[in-house]
C-alpha cells in the first residue's frame, strides 16, 4: 500500500511513470487510507471541490457573454438572461452556486470546530482553509458587483469605504482601489479581472489544502490518532468515493431546488435596478453569507473600531489552534465544549439574523451582545476550557467502542502493532 512500492502493471505505464510519476500519485489518491468511521459531515470537502469546479466552468461561459463596462454591464447581464442560449440557466447556477459554496464551506468549518480538526498536527490545513475562505469572500463580493445593479454599486461603495477607516492613508487607498473618485468604470473592470483570477488562486490553495491533509491523514469523529493503514482505515476508493458521491447527489438536489424553483430568493430585488450613483437604496444588506460579519461591523459605534472588529472576527480563526488549549480533539469527549459549541452556532446565526435587520433599537443591542459573546468564546472560553474541563475517556482505537477493546493501554498498543 505504500506509495513508493507502486509499480504500474503495463510496460507503457512503467515507462511513463518512470519519467513522470503521475500514476504513483493516482495510486496514492485511490489507496489513501481513510478512517472508517467518517460520517456525512466529512463529505463536504468533496462537495466544495464540486462547487469550485462548477463556479469556474459556469464563470468561464458567462465571461464569454458579459461585458465589463459601466455602460454595458447591466444590459449584458440581461442579454445573458434573455438572449443567450441557456444563459439564464448558467447564470442562475453561477449566482446560486456562490450561495451553495458558502453553505458547504460553513458546514465544513463548523464540522472542523466540532471535531477539533484544526488541532495539532493539522494547523496548516486549517490556516490554508481560512485563506481559501477569505479569498472566497473577496471573489463573492467582486462577483456581486459585476451585474452593476443598485446593490452591486452600493455594496461596492460601502465595502471599499471600509478601507477609508485606516488613519492617514485610508482615503488614498480607497481612491487607488476605485481608480477614480467614486466607484465607476475603472472599478468595475479591475473587479472583473480579480474575480476571474481568484478562483484559480483558490484552486491552487485547494491542492495545498489536500496535500497538507494527506500528510497526517483525516481526523475522524472520535478524534484520536490512528495507525495508517490499519484495521481502523479503509482505502479512499471505493469506500469514500461512493459515500462522497451519494452526499454530493443529495447536495445537488438542494442546489437544483434553488436554481429551478427560487433562483432569486437569495438575492435582492434592488439589484435588478441599474446602478445609480445619485440614489442609495433604502436598505443595504450584503449577501446572506456575509451577514454575521456585517452585524459585527455595525454593532461597534466607531468607524475604525468597527472595521477592526469585523476583520478580527475572521482572522481570530487563524489562531484558533493555539487558542483552544484542550488536547482532546472531538467534542464527543468534551461535555462542556459541546455545549459552548452549540451556543456559538446559535450566536453566529443570531448575528446573521440581526445583520439583515436595521441597526437600531433592540436589534442593535442583540448585535452587541452577540458580538461580545463571539469574541468571548474564542478569547476566554476556549483557552480556559482546556484547563478546567473534565473530559470523558477516549477510546484507544476506532474499533474499540464497537468491538470492545482492551481497557489496558499497554495491551491495546501491543494489539495495534500486531495489526500493523
Amino acid at each position, binding site marked *: 500500500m505504500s506509495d513508493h512500492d507502486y509499480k504500474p502493471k503495463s510496460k507503457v505505464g512503467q515507462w511513463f511513470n518512470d519519467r513522470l510519476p503521475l500514476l504513483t500519485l493516482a495510486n496514492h489518491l485511490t489507496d489513501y487510507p481513510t478512517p472508517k468511521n467518517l460520517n456525512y459531515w466529512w463529505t463536504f470537502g468533496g462537495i466544495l471541490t464540486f462547487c469550485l469546479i462548477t463556479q469556474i466552468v459556469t464563470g468561464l461561459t458567462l465571461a464569454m457573454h458579459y461585458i465589463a463596462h459601466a455602460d454595458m454591464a447591466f444590459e449584458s447581464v440581461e442579454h445573458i438572461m434573455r438572449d443567450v442560449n441557456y444563459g439564464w440557466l448558467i447564470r442562475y447556477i453561477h449566482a446560486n452556486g456562490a450561495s451553495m459554496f458558502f453553505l458547504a464551506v460553513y458546514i465544513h468549518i463548523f464540522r472542523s470546530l466540532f471535531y477539533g480538526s484544526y488541532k495539532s498536527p493539522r494547523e496548516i490545513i486549517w490556516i490554508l482553509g481560512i485563506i481559501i475562505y477569505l479569498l472566497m469572500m473577496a471573489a463573492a463580493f467582486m462577483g456581486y458587483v459585476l451585474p452593476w445593479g443598485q446593490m452591486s454599486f*452600493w455594496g461596492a*461603495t*460601502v465595502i*471599499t*469605504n*471600509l478601507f*477609508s477607516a485606516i488613519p492617514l492613508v485610508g482615503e488614498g487607498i480607497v*481612491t*487607488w*482601489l*476605485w*481608480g*477614480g*473618485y*467614486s*466607484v*465607476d468604470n*475603472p472599478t468595475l473592470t*479591475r473587479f472583473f479581472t480579480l474575480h476571474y483570477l481568484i478562483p484559480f488562486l483558490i484552486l491552487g490553495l485547494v491542492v495545498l489544502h489536500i496535500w497538507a491533509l494527506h500528510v497526517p491523514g483525516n481526523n475522524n469523529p472520535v478524534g484520536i490518532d490512528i495507525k495508517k493503514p490499519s484495521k481502523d482505515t479503509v482505502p479512499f476508493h471505493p469506500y469514500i468515493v461512493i459515500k462522497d458521491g451519494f452526499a454530493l447527489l443529495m447536495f445537488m438536489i438542494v442546489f437544483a431546488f434553488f436554481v429551478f424553483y427560487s433562483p432569486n430568493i437569495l438575492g435582492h430585488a434592488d439589484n435588478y435596478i441599474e446602478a445609480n*450613483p*445619485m*440614489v*442609495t*437604496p*433604502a*436598505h*443595504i444588506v450584503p449577501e446572506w453569507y456575509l451577514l454575521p460579519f456585517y452585524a459585527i461591523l*455595525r454593532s461597534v*459605534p*466607531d*468607524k475604525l473600531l*468597527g472595521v477592526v472588529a469585523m476583520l478580527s472576527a475572521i482572522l481570530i480563526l487563524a489562531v484558533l489552534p493555539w487558542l483552544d488549549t484542550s488536547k482532546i480533539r472531538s467534542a464527543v469527549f468534551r461535555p462542556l465544549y459541546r455545549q459552548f459549541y452549540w451556543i456559538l452556532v446559535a450566536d453566529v446565526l443570531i448575528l446573521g439574523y440581526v445583520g439583515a435587520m*436595521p*441597526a*437600531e433599537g433592540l436589534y442593535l443591542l442583540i448585535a452587541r451582545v452577540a458580538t461580545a459573546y463571539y469574541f468571548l468564546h474564542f478569547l476566554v472560553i476556549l483557552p480556559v476550557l482546556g484547563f478546567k474541563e473534565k473530559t470523558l475517556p477516549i477510546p484507544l482505537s476506532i474499533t474499540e467502542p464497537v468491538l470492545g477493546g482492551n481497557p489496558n493501554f499497554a495491551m491495546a498498543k501491543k494489539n495495534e502493532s500486531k495489526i500493523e
Partner: protein
Amino acid sequence: MSDKKPKRRDFLFTATTAVGAVGAAAVVWPMVDQMNPDASVKALASTEVDISSVKPGNTITVLWRGKPVFIRRRTKEEIDEARSVKMEDLIHPEKDEDRVKNPEWLVMLGVCTHLGCVPLNDKGDYDGWFCPCHGSHYDTSGRIRKGPAPWNMEVPKYEFVNANTIKIG
C-alpha cells in the same frame, strides 16, 4: 566572518542583489500606480451648475467626479438653527459660517462620511439629512450629530461664478 576580507564573489552577490531590488521596485511601481485615477478621470475635475431655478427650502443634487453634490437653498429658519448650535454639542465641531460662502447656499458632497452612502434629504432627528445605510443623522449645516459617521459631510472647493452659477472643483 568579520576578520575575513570580502571577496570578489561577495561584492558581486551584494551588487547583483541591490541592482535586482532596485529593478524590481522600478517595475512594481508602474504596476501599482496604473490603478490610480487616470488622466481622463482627472480631466473631469470641475463642473458648473445653474442654480437660478432652486427655490428656498429645496435641494438639487448634481454629479461631480462620480459623486453627488447637494446644493441646498436654505430657509431663514434652517440657517438660524444651524448657527444656534453650541460647538460642544458637535461630534466634529465646525461653525456653520465656515461651511458656507453665502449662508443661503449650502454646497457639500452628498456622501456619508461613514461608508459612502447618499444621505436622504429632509430626514433625521436634526432636520437635515439621514443616511439609510447605518443611521447617521446630519443637521441643516450637514454636520454629523448622531450615528457612526466620524465627520461632517465634506464641503468641496467651489465658487460663485455669478449670482446664478456655481462652479464646483
